[in-house]
């Protein structure tokens, strides 16, 4: 497993006097699920926004498929094959699944000089892609608003995969979901990884990370505490690294279990 698709080298990012990232290096491999863990404010969001072209790094380098990249905006990153599924999804509840699926990438059917939205194609593809992810839609005309949170995440993931994502960044996809829906989303992540796509899974839930992760990188106060392989590290160690050690252990002692 050494087919590295994207390398983040010594990324530093300052916002005015605030140091959000103080030299973070991570490499992501194709076909792996790389979990990025960290507490609130650890710099996870800044880091993935740098990776997806929203922020420019103050210092450091992004190497994508062997070439140094300088993304001017998220569009560049998406074109290169880095797709982000945000916490807030980027789905429009009042629109149908197939209209959402092809939003911004509508298939066109030419009718003389008139270019029409090819609804038949869009409906077929949306249904097929959702079925691949294990979700059987009632109808492609179903409004996204009628789907559960997990199903919406799956639509967003399926959409990114269909449009050729090589790196799929998932920003806390499970944080607002119930147990079963979380399991569904984790299963989807597994399917995506098996297609050879690199998944960057951001979470602060160690159990969710352990369930699908191949490698784990912990961020704390804008720094990495290194990357660990699956099996090399226990959930307790990860938890400690995220929280920064001592006081957490004391808290857990008083609460009687892993938080």
């Amino acid at each position: 497993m050494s087919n590295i698709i994207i390398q983040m080298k010594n990324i530093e990012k300052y916002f005015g006097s605030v140091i959000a990232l103080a030299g973070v290096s991570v490499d992501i491999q194709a076909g792996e699920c790389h979990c990025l863990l960290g507490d609130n404010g650890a710099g996870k969001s800044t880091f993935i926004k740098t990776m997806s072209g929203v922020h420019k790094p103050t210092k450091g380098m992004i190497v994508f498929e062997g070439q140094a990249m300088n993304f001017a905006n998220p569009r560049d990153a998406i074109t290169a094959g880095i797709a982000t599924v945000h916490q807030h999804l980027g789905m429009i509840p009042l629109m149908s699944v197939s209209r959402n699926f092809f939003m911004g990438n509508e298939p066109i059917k030419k009718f003389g000089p008139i270019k029409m939205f090819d609804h038949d194609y869009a409906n077929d593809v949306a249904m097929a892609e959702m079925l691949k992810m294990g979700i059987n839609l009632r109808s492609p005309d179903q409004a996204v608003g009628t789907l559960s949170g997990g199903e919406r995440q799956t639509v967003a993931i399926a959409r990114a995969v269909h449009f050729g994502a090589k790196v799929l960044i998932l920003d806390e996809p499970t944080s607002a979901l119930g147990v079963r829906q979380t399991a569904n989303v984790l299963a989807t992540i597994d399917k995506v990884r098996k297609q050879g796509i690199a998944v960057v899974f951001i979470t602060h839930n160690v159990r969710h990370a352990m369930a699908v992760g191949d490698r784990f990188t912990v961020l704390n106060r804008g720094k990495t505490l290194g990357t660990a392989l699956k099996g090399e590290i226990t959930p307790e160690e990860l938890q400690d690294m995220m929280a920064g050690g001592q006081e957490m252990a004391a808290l857990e002692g008083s609460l009687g279990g892993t938080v």
Partner: protein
Amino acid sequence: MSDVSNGDERIKTTSKFRQALMRPELGGMVGTVAVFVFFGLFAFDSGMFNSQGVMNWSVVSAQFMIIAVGACLLMIAGEFDLSVGSMIGFAGMMIAIFGVTLGWPMWIAILITFVICVAFGALNGYIVVTTGLPSFIVTLATLFILRGFTIFIPQTLERKTIIGGIREAAEGDWLAPIFGGEIGEPIFVWLGDRGIINVFERGNRAGEPVVNGIPMLIVWALGLVIIGHFLLTRTRFGNWVFAAGGDADAARNAGVPVNAVKIKMFMFTAFCATVFAVCQVMEFGSAGADRGILKEFEAIIAVVIGGALLTGGYGSVIGAALGALIFGVVQQGLFFANVESSLFRVFLGVILLAAVILNTYIRRTITGER
């Protein structure tokens, strides 16, 4: 674990009735049927359904339809335009100034008016998307600015606020009949000869049909409805309109040029208002500084009756057209039925409230909000 969504026993299968309720046009369809049944029962003998009567409410409905199509697409894109009424007055006045006061050929006057008004629409849109202010406020400002010019310009140039002589100035012009003419005369003559529609019985037009053609106004209305509906439901741009109004940020993330879509919709709304104005001045033969007052609200009401959400992202051009039809039929029908016309406003208020409540319910059902 992946077959959960296949059959969640807690989700009731939605009935056909509820699925039908999800169509934005439904309210408009039910309302249209109700209105025709009502006037069919209570005003059938009043002349409302003979050829003049039908033409009467068809023309009024077509007027509403023209501005409702623009307002509908703009509302689905997430914005309002309160300057439609002022734009109608302003556009009519510009045609009179260019065509009568300055004496330019009518087709030039019409084309320049279109350019100026659509540019104002673009300006509305540009200010809204660049400042991020609610379109409500921005177009309220335009409402006053345009109305002010509509009064100021003719007063300064002609010392009056109504300019006549447009019909004479348009005589022999090639473009003016496209707005002020009629089509289908032979059909009406044929119908009149066979006694299917009324003909004049006396006078120098004896034997000619009372209604001798379909005004171009109606052709424009139907044309705009068809184009608007096609654009919204069958094209890529239509998907962008829904997306821009549904959630502008999500749409931007997906690469939809939200700002351009919104500006274009403001321009289209201005275009519709100008079509309305040109048809009106050609029909009346004059332009008045008070034309079009309150039209912006009538357009919005027609759109809301037609099932569009005030918050954007949901609606239908066909629904808006039906809303305009209900509007026109009721307004003229009350006149035929000899009902005090002020009651029309009461009706309007009640039906508006009912439509908004129904639309909100539909929205909640779709998005699962509680």
